[in-house]
């Protein structure tokens, strides 16, 4: 439900995996096949000579060093920044408001309803149920619109469809209170708390 970039993750992880795989296979071949070793020495020495020639050409006037070093350092810094940006994309998308309206036709001014209202209301409504081990409600932004994510952890043996129907009724009641239909995801999950709690025998 959050804004984790699935496709980007797959692409970048795949690229990294392919590169590591290629390096690993090359190292293994170098260790085992002599012909690959000869090819590698010829090829990489040529490349290294070319790099040395380039760095001779690109010397900073009046100094020993080539500006290629600075360029390489800049590339590395950019790469680090990009990686940090990528990590910061994971799990983003929490929102604060579930309703944010501007309509002067009937009421002057804005109407903003915080996500906390829905979160607290649903949590309070589900708090007294003995067949639940935990409830978390969070507001996320989906396609630029707010949505609710209700995660319930039932005890062992609870029928998920009955639980889903109950939560869904609570959500409909919330719709009445808020006056807006927001997308709602109900996730009925299992966790450590449900695994080690006793089974629900009586409801």
């Amino acid at each position, binding site marked *: 439900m959050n804004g984790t970039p699935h496709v980007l993750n797959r692409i970048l992880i795949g690229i990294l*995996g392919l590169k*590591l795989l290629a390096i690993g296979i090359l190292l293994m071949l170098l260790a085992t096949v002599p012909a690959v070793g000869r090819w590698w020495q010829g090829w990489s020495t040529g490349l290294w000579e070319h*790099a040395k020639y380039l760095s001779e050409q690109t010397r900073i006037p009046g100094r020993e060093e080539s500006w290629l070093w600075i360029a390489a350092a800049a590339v590395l810094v950019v790469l680090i920044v990009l990686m940090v940006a990528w990590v910061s994309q994971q799990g983003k998308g929490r929102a604060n408001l579930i309703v944010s309206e501007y309509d002067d036709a009937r009421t002057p*001014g804005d109407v903003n309803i915080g996500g906390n209202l829905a979160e607290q209301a649903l949590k309070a409504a589900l708090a007294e149920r003995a067949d639940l081990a935990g409830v978390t409600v969070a507001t996320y932004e989906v396609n630029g619109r707010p949505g609710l994510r209700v995660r319930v952890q039932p005890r062992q043996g609870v029928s998920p469809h009955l639980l889903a129907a109950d939560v869904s009724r609570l959500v409909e009641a919330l719709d009445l209170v808020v006056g807006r239909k927001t997308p709602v995801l109900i996730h009925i*999950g299992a966790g450590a708390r449900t695994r080690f709690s006793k089974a629900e025998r009586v409801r």
Partner: protein
Amino acid sequence: MSHAQTPHARRSHPDRGHPDTLHAADTADGDTPGAPAPGTSDLGDRIDVGLQRILKRETRSSRAGMAGLAAALVIAACVYALLESALRAIGQPPWLIDPQTAAERLTALPGGTSPLLLGALGGVVAMVGLIFFLNAVLPGRKSRHLLRDPRAGVVVDDEVIASALARAARTAANVTQEQVMVVVSQRLVVVNVRPTSGVPLREERILAAVEDELQRMAPSPMPSVRVNVATSGVIGA
């Protein structure tokens, strides 16, 4: 009169007519009768479209952990390379290896190191790469099923389905909780029951009970049920 802190306010002009009266039929099932608001005519459809996308995403792995690991790996390599080249640029002795020496060693590769070490290193690197690559390429389906609901999208962990089916099987077979084990996968439910020694079990009854519970649950995709009754019994259960 809008505030700066409402960037997602959906503005609608007052002179656009009254969509709430025009599209009353569309919104009848969706919004509350007392407070329909302008611009809600296509809201129901858009919720459905958004929900479909959310449900699709919820049944797949986001690979956030792997992404963090990959980024950390790349950042570590970059920081090390930066450190060594900076040391070289300011004329200090290298920390582990000077970039130029490193490059020269690399070009001379099969020589200079033991083949065993090189091969082992290559194997480890290739293994890590393969793990990353497969993680990206495989579908990464989470063990979850979807339930139908008129209002919300519902995802259920397979573990929850399994424990509900185990309860049904347990009550039908009249055995204790420990004697039933249910394994739920995408398209198959396997119910393993160990009978109490000396008490015969009717397999059809268990199957009927589990299938009945599954029918009422109606998970999507709908799995088929298989019941295994163990040949050896449990004593004193």
